[in-house]
């Protein structure tokens, strides 16, 4: 009896000494915003991630993928930095991902550099972010990429003079600078500009100022949420006819929710963006269907940023054979390209930033619904700031 037990114990010890090949999960620290005024965008980003995992499973290169989710609660640099620090130090994550807002991404980039962790930015759109850590890639969009392209497009498609109106914060400044620079470089003239305060409830005064100059074109950048509807109403109230005056904006201004809120006041708005859920590309149709089944609503550009972010992580892991060394992961990511629901996209080999198509769309009524109808596109746009474009 005792011999048998002893033998069993030895066997158990031996088995313990040679465990099955390291099946430790790959831990991904997901820093997002799930509460407060940006909650909806953060939730959509997370939904995109969940959709991808549901479609492709949670095992990559023989290892299980585990997401550890953290909520910053809004714009909070010290909280974002602390969460990133704790994820590294306490939870031993292998890589950082998520990042809805620019300031949070900037703060966490420090930790990525210090602790040498691979970092995937899935939404934040300011150019300089990518320069803050050598282990970072981005799968969303940059504002200069979209708005700079737009400026060039506008000037080369019959628009000579433009008035710009942006919200007075980082993304607004970025868009204003990118659009104006590109517009002027392509021969256009900026006849005036104004910046509105963040969370401005009523745009009438600003729209009136624009109208006083009787511009042929108005460029706008505002965040999502309450702003697009308020702006649309201000245009209608001040009698700005979108057929006579071209109004150019970013895709956030004509998102599904914004269009519902603006109603017919949005008809004729021209926007430049990288994704619309109505795209009929087969990969997108599949994505939208799966997304709807899982979450009961349509995806948006936040979701596709998350979706492609996870895709990038999975592909990188396949290339490194499951290894999570930051240098190896970044090397694997550089130059990677794939077909996404948004169209073809890739990770620039020099700047590690996202390269993708930018579509020019106009808001039209299709089948009784307001839709962004694409009528032009610019292929393989790089971020002009960092690639010297």
């Amino acid at each position: 009896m005792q011999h048998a037990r002893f033998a069993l114990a030895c066997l158990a010890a031996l088995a313990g000494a040679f465990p099955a090949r390291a099946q430790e999960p790959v831990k991904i620290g997901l820093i997002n915003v799930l509460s407060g005024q940006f909650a909806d965008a953060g939730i959509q980003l997370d939904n995109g991630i969940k959709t991808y995992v549901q479609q492709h499973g949670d095992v990559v290169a023989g290892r299980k993928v585990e997401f550890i989710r953290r909520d910053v609660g809004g714009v909070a640099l010290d909280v974002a930095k602390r969460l990133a620090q704790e994820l590294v130090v306490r939870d031993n994550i292998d890589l950082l991902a998520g990042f809805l807002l620019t300031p949070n991404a900037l703060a966490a980039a420090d930790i990525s550099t210090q602790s040498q962790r691979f970092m995937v930015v899935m939404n934040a759109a300011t150019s300089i972010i990518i320069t803050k850590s050598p282990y970072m890639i981005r799968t969303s969009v940059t504002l200069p990429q979209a708005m700079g392209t737009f400026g060039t497009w506008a000037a080369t498609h019959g628009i000579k003079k433009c008035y710009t109106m942006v919200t007075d914060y980082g993304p607004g400044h970025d868009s204003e600078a990118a659009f104006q620079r590109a517009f002027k470089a392509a021969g256009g003239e900026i006849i005036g500009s104004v910046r509105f305060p963040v969370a401005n409830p009523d745009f009438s005064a600003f729209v009136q100022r624009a109208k006083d100059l009787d511009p042929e074109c108005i460029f706008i950048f505002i965040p999502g949420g309450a702003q697009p509807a308020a702006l649309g109403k201000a245009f209608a109230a001040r009698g700005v006819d979108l057929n006579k005056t071209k109004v150019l904006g970013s895709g956030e201004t004509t998102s599904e929710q914004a269009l519902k809120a603006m109603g017919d006041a949005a008809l004729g708005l021209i926007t430049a963006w990288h994704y619309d859920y109505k795209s009929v590309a087969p990969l997108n149709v599949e994505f939208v269907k799966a997304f709807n089944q899982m979450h009961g609503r349509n995806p948006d550009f936040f979701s596709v940023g998350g979706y492609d972010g996870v895709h990038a992580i999975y592909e990188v892991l396949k290339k490194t054979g499951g290894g999570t060394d930051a240098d190896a992961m970044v090397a694997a990511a550089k130059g990677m390209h794939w077909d996404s629901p948004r169209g073809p996209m890739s990770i620039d080999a020099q700047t590690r930033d996202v390269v993708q198509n930018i579509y020019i769309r106009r808001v039209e009524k299709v089948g009784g619904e307001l839709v962004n109808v694409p009528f032009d596109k610019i292929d393989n746009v790089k971020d002009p700031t960092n690639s010297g474009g």
Partner: protein
Amino acid sequence: MIASAFGVLFDGLAYGMLLFLLSVGLSVTLGMMNFINLAHLSFAMLGGYTAVALTNNLGWSFLLTLPAAFLAPALLSVVLERVLYRRLYGASELDQCLLTIGIVFVSIAAAAYLFGTVQQAVKLPPYLRGNIAIMHQSVGVYRLFLIGMALMVAIAVLAALEHTKFGAKVRAAVDNQRMARGLGIDVDRVFAVAFALGSGLAGLGGALAIEIVGLDHAFALTYLVYVLIVVAVGGLGTIGGSLAAALLLGVSDMAGKYYVPQLGAFFIYLVMVALLMWRPLGLFGRR
């Protein structure tokens, strides 16, 4: 410039009227019971969501939802007053602030839970949409409607205060609570009714606000600052004061953004601080 100034003035007037509707209840309850109810806009939010739920889910016409938007918060305020507020009538300002901030937080979370964090919108009936021309100026029909409604409310409230027995009791309680009690006026009941009316008006304001400034789960906090500014500047316990302050702030905010947009939100805070330093009790406050 003058012509477009009219447009700005008109929009500022509408915005000011909206602020008035949202603030008048707070001014009266603050003046009467000295109770700082920072949760005042939670009632506005309830009114807004009531209107949204009724138009979007049950297909009611927008105008019909307005009485409901008034009643729902009024009823809720009666309950809350009995259960919570009554306990803190004699408490310090700080405690009242904190209790009501707690209520605001709970209401925000409840709104997020029930309706999500998405922006809400109401479908306006066709006769409230679009613009009409007045003196060669394009003015929004809805804004006209809003101004009209707010004026009607202001007149009704002022008339009630001046010409009804209840109004007299309210005025007495605002002027000198102890004396009023001494004269046999049931101040607690007067307050409960006035509180309900004020909350109901806030709810009405909340429903009317959706078309102008939108509605989301954080509404109760976002606009709290503006309402506090109106009440502090106008003076406590005066309808006329609230109206004057709301219009002043609405128009000056709009004008500031039109003529000096670089100042942005700076302007409204500067005006408030300056006004309060000059008249700490508000423009029309007594005590």
